[in-house]
């Protein structure tokens, strides 16, 4: 790397200084909002940036950083989030934070034995202060003073009377019209007035009513007291629970450590179905990648041949599956494979007089799924191979002159090894993607046909991710996000291990940069 001119250096440091200034400004704004996580992230990012520009050793990082920023924010951060959720009890009934639940409970009221309702007039002065005059059913009148309601005699001269004897203003306050009341509803709703030991709140656009507070949080006991029944509910296992086991809904999120992981690993049903589901997941991913790669490469190879006419048109037609929304294609395929009514069986019936129970028989359902997924995937492989073949053709130019090998031999000895360099990592990636391709399974078979005697809802075509989706979302009260996260992480460990083996096997990590 060359030093560059003085001007360039100056510019560089100037930019860094400017960026740092912006970071400091943003950090202050965030600190005030109490957003400490973001401040920390920002700080790390800023330090990294300075290191990058100022350190010579970090030069390669300058190339990597722009992409890395997005990768960290949108891929790595969600992973961190998942890990954190996997340590909680997040699920139906335990969605909110404890603070949210306490706030909600403290906002709950109940009707006193003799509830009262009031009609009201609302008033506002030039400073924007809001006051109300309430009239009870029996004609008693009250006026708000701060948070308190005090009896008031409206006959005094302070109170300006309008048509029909209504009070239109007092002490610089003027009465709000109905549309003005609508405009001020948020403020009116926020009023919590006290009348004796009862609370008075806005209950509708036209009325106030008496209420009593239902719950009160006692911080030093970490408990909520039901003021109506005097029962104390202690915070236990993510719910406020009374000594005799009654729980207040909603519960709240808590950290449960590794409990979700233990639940998965010690679940008796999971252990008995795991081998079958895992086996099919591997077969499914491998065969999908295998077939779609060879179909894609084959077509790319044919369509790279300058002697084949109409290449441009063919290539476009062949990527059509890639350009159709998978959602509709999968449904159409499922319909075509329908055993009783599908076109495929009708064709087979005409040709061979036989029917295949495509999506109902475990083996055929698997075959159909792979067939459909190859259809969805091969255009990607074709485009990728088309690109990779270009690097080959360059080398070919030199190599082909040397020996007089046949086309077939050249393909295996020269084309493939070169192609492999750029394609192998993509195949591993594609394998991992298919391994976790929940959507296609869900759209076509939803994991079915079902397996009789399975200990868990594991169908014949369920892959790990769809099976665990069912466990987490079709169990208990649904949406066991904590459990689902733990499972995601376990699956990640599995797929990472498999990929590690694949890397060894394909030597994808080796540097094959020949000609250097």
């Amino acid at each position, binding site marked *: *790397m*060359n030093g560059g001119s003085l001007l360039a250096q100056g510019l560089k440091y100037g930019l860094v200084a400017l960026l740092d200034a912006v970071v400091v400004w943003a950090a202050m704004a965030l600190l005030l*909002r109490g*957003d400490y996580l973001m401040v920390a992230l920002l700080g790390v990012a800023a330090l990294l940036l300075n290191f990058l520009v100022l350190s010579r050793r970090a*030069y*390669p990082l300058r*190339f*990597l950083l*722009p*992409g*890395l920023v*997005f*990768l960290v924010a*949108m891929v790595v951060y*969600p992973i961190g*989030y998942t890990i954190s959720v996997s340590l909680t009890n997040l699920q139906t009934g335990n969605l909110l934070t404890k603070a949210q639940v306490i706030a909600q409970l403290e906002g709950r009221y109940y009707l006193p034995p003799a509830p009262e309702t009031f009609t009201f007039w609302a008033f506002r002065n030039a400073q924007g202060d809001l006051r109300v005059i309430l009239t009870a059913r029996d004609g008693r009148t009250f006026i708000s003073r701060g948070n308190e309601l005090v009896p008031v005699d409206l006959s005094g001269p302070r109170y300006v009377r309008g048509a029909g004897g209504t009070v239109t203003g007092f002490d610089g306050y003027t009465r709000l019209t109905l549309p003005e009341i609508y405009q001020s509803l948020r403020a009116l709703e926020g009023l919590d007035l006290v009348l004796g030991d009862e609370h008075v709140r806005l209950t509708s656009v036209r009325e106030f009513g008496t209420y009593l507070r239902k719950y009160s949080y006692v911080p030093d006991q970490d408990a909520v007291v039901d003021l109506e029944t005097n029962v104390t509910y202690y915070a236990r296992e993510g719910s406020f629970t009374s000594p005799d086991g009654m729980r207040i809904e909603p519960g709240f999120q808590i950290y449960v450590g590794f409990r979700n992981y233990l639940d998965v690993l010690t679940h008796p049903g999971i252990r008995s179905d795991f081998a079958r589901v895992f086996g099919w997941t591997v077969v499914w991913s491998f065969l999908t990648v295998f077939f779609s790669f060879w179909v894609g490469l084959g*077509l790319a190879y*044919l369509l*790279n041949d300058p*002697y*084949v006419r109409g290449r*441009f048109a*063919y290539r*476009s*037609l*062949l*990527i*059509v599956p890639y*350009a159709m*929304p998978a*959602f*509709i*294609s999968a449904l159409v*395929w499922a319909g*075509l494979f329908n055993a009783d*009514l599908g076109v495929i069986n009708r064709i087979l019936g005409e040709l061979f007089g036989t029917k295949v129970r495509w999506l109902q028989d475990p083996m055929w359902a698997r075959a159909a799924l792979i067939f459909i997924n190859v259809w969805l995937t091969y255009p990607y492989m074709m485009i*990728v191979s*088309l690109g*990779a073949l270009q*690097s080959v*053709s*360059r080398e070919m*130019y030199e190599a082909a002159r040397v020996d007089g090998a046949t086309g077939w031999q050249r393909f295996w000895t020269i084309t493939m090894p*070169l192609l492999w360099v*750029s394609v*192998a990592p*993509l195949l591993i*990636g594609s394998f991992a*993607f298919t391994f*976790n391709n*929940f959507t296609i399974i869900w759209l076509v078979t939803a994991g079915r046909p079902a397996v009789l005697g399975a200990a868990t809802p594991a169908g014949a075509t369920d892959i790990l991710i769809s099976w665990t989706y069912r466990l987490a979302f079709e169990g208990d009260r649904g949406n066991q*996000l904590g459990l*689902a*996260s733990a499972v995601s992480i376990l699956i*990640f460990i599995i797929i990472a291990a498999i*990929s590690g083996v694949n890397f060894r096997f394909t030597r994808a*990590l080796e*540097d*094959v940069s020949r000609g*250097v």
Partner: protein
Amino acid sequence: MYSRPSWLGLVVRHVLIWIGVIYALFPVLWILSASFNPTNNLLDQRLFPANPTLDHYRRLFTDPAVPFPRWILNTLIVSGTTAVITVFLCALGAYAFSRFRFRGRRAGLLSLLLVQMFPQMLAMVAIYLLLIRIKEIVPWLGYNTHPGLIMVYLGGAMGFNTWFMKGYFDTIPRSVEESALVDGATPFQAFLRIVLPLARPILAVVLIIQFITTYSEYVLASILLKGTDMYTLAVGLRFFIQAAYDRRWGAFSAAAILGALLILAIFLPLQKLIISGLTGGAVKE
């Protein structure tokens, strides 16, 4: 790489390609059929619907509740921007991995691929919360903005594409840049002026792949965009079949077909770029 095939070889090639074409287009025929079917049927027993109609296509351009042209425009903006930026950022990263030797390089490469393998079950919740936060600080970059969505897509696009490009860069001899470096160019200049032009085919491949991936992405877009005017085509499409029991397959299919034609229109000229790596000399033998 290719020698002039015999007459028979040529026929075999065309037959193979045609088998591929039939495989590719077979289910699409039903989607095409549905787009002309007045009764909104997707899986009609007849491939040629009774009383075929152009109504579904007409509706896409006339119904004010369905701003289809707007969706196309949004898609072009989101997918186009994402694809172009992806190509540039991944090329930068790939160049570093291919040409520099630095500590953590292998670990970096490996983790780049590994993080992409993480099951995304909960990613959308995390991303949603993140974008809501961003919106509170930088409104134009957060939730329910196209730049925000593009940012999300960029994050997901880095891994595989960087790997793919790195593989290609590895096959470009280092000697081609060395003279430039000797002449005093910085590695960045060498990358920009020498390596990038040579890597045109792979840039075009990543461009088209990223464009199509973004074009068809639905889950994140549907969570991060609110209001029909903001929708991308993929989200807009689902709009037709959102009700479990009122699926307007006719309009859905018509829009899907038009969207696919759009992709083909973009792919057609890009092909030339992809093939441009095939130098004239390679054809002869």
